[in-house]
């Protein structure tokens, strides 16, 4: 049992720091660059993202294991998983609007952005690729979500700080964001070798 827990912990640390989705897999970059201009939106996005990631990973795992494998239609996983994500987003949109309008007002706008985001889709695909168990899949999704949130929050705080810096014109905006991301990635290299999976 102890070894199991340690494995899960390692999986979370690995997905969030050592193999951070943004800095080593380059996933979710559109959102990462698009939404990290302001801290408030970055935090809202992070919360929504992590929640959707964990839930969609869980549902996708169940669907894959108990529907697709028995039917032998694993090759359709792209279509099925995007359906799961889209359905989940639509569902949580409706539920949130009814149950908690305040929360919806705050996070609803991010939900719309999620269904066309690669990071949400990548988690179930990678879970299948790595043959993770149900619990491992959830741990992986959680770690990925936390790592993505960390990346977003760091990036937002840095971009707020350099807002008024005298950056050469062609570099303003996105190119500079890329350079900064490169430097964060450089710093994150320090985590490599921390965990062997």
């Amino acid at each position, binding site marked *: 049992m102890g070894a199991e827990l340690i494995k899960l912990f390692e999986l979370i640390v690995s997905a969030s720091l*050592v193999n951070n989705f943004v800095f080593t897999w380059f996933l979710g970059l559109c959102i990462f660059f698009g939404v990290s201009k302001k801290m408030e939106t970055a935090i809202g996005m992070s919360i929504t993202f992590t929640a959707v990631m964990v839930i969609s990973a869980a549902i996708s795992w169940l669907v894959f294991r108990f529907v697709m494998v028995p039917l032998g239609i694993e090759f*359709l996983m792209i279509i099925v998983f995007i359906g799961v994500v889209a359905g989940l987003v639509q569902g949580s949109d409706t539920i949130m609007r009814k149950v908690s309008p305040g929360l919806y007002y705050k996070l609803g706008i991010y939900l719309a952005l999620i269904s066309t985001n690669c990071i949400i889709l990548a988690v179930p695909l990678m879970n299948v690729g790595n043959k993770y168990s149900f619990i491992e899949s959830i741990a992986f999704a959680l770690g990925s979500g936390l790592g993505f949130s960390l990346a977003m929050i760091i990036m937002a705080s840095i971009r707020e700080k350099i807002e008024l810096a005298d950056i050469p014109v062609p570099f303003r905006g996105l190119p500079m964001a890329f350079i900064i991301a490169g430097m964060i990635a450089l710093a994150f290299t320090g985590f*490599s*070798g921390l965990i*062997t*999976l």
Partner: protein
Amino acid sequence: MTGKDILKITLNLAVIYIAGGLIIALVHAATSPIRYHNKVVAEELALKSLVPDADKIEKLGDWKIHEKDAKYFVAKKGEATIGYIVQSYGKGYSSYINTLIAVDRDFRVKKVKILDQKETPGLGDEIEEDSFTDLLKGKDADHLKVLKTETTEYVQAITGATISSRAVTDDAVRNGVKFIKATITGGGAGHVGR
């Protein structure tokens, strides 16, 4: 929403599903033999490149090392056994290094091939190069040992990548060789993997 709308939507979905399903099924059917073939051929080629003079390589069984599934094979020329191939894993710097090891009938290493690794680029990933894997040739289990000093009797570490060198030599290859030796000579499944 009128009945006409509902009819149209239903029709939309039906057409999309039928057409899409047809196209995907066709492509799937057309490519699946090729994809299957690719995988089998790739594995065969990898095995073949390890023991080029064998004309038949047969799978003997599965074993586990570092909780990972690995296979082992026998290489034959005509009816005579000329060696064995064993797959093994070693715990490296930042990844488990997947290796294939060919041994002769005296369980000395003939050739080592790194199938998959994610060691430090430019440093640890030199384990993939012939200049390193050639060092392992001709060694038996007792001499599969990494030293940091100059040596030909044992295996000399790659400068700056001792851990990766050790992961291949002391972990993957040595355990693989020990396992295949115990399995073949002892008849049973000697379990040396951790």
